[in-house]
């Protein structure tokens, strides 16, 4: 069903998390448990601690998964913290996570939800 309506969402932030390949699913699951709706995952190549470890660096997966999740500003701290620990980012060299403020976003929003929220 096409609504041909564009509802602009503000107060939205994007969380980007870069982890070793294979860890993304657990991080996304943690984010969803904390209230996030969805995620986008793509692959990348990363460098950093691996180059400093010498032969031990072979244990670090060079291929990375980059996870982006859009969440409401009021949820961002909770989702960020869950993702941080699910990705084990308290371990040095495990990856990075950051938040970007978005100016606006838009997606399909069912009519009944729009009417209920009065936007």
């Amino acid at each position, binding site marked *: 069903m096409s609504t041909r309506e564009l509802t602009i969402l503000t107060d939205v932030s994007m969380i980007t998390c870069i982890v070793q390949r294979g860890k993304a699913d657990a991080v996304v699951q943690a984010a*969803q448990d904390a209230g996030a709706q969805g995620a986008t*995952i793509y692959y990348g190549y990363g460098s950093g601690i691996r180059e400093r470890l010498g032969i031990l660096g072979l244990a670090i997966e060079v291929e990375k998964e980059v996870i982006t999740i859009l969440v409401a500003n009021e949820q961002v701290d909770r989702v960020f913290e869950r993702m941080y620990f699910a990705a084990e980012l308290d371990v040095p060299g495990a990856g990075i996570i950051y938040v970007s403020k978005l100016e606006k976003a838009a997606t399909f929003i069912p009519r009944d939800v729009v009417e209920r929220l009065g936007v």
Partner: protein
Amino acid sequence: MKPLAKDKKPLAEDKKPLAKDKKPLAEDAKQIVCIMPKGMGRNLVEALSQEYGIYDANFSHARGVGRSRQIQNRGLGEQREKDVFSVVVESAQADELFEFLFYKAGLDEPHTGMIYMQAAPQAAMMELPEITSP
């Protein structure tokens, strides 16, 4: 014979190209990113070039994880292949392009994707050179 690098004479200070002479810089640009079903990225790149003359759009592939109402009770997420489209535009044009891309990508349909815009405080806007016939 190619001259060695050490034989190159440094350019005079007034002849050194400045970065801003090479490409026009925008100080208040916006980045628009569109996450949509696989196969739509090429359509958006072509639509932007044909209708707005913007040629520096890119897209890559990703997988999207969502919540499917049918299977969420079993703890499974819904996974689909996605195209992630990205373009940096001048702020004066940003709102118009945001709306154009929203409808062009079919994001007013359920389970398609989403679009967002964020500030790009500094950006080099790409312009194609004029091609003169020989």
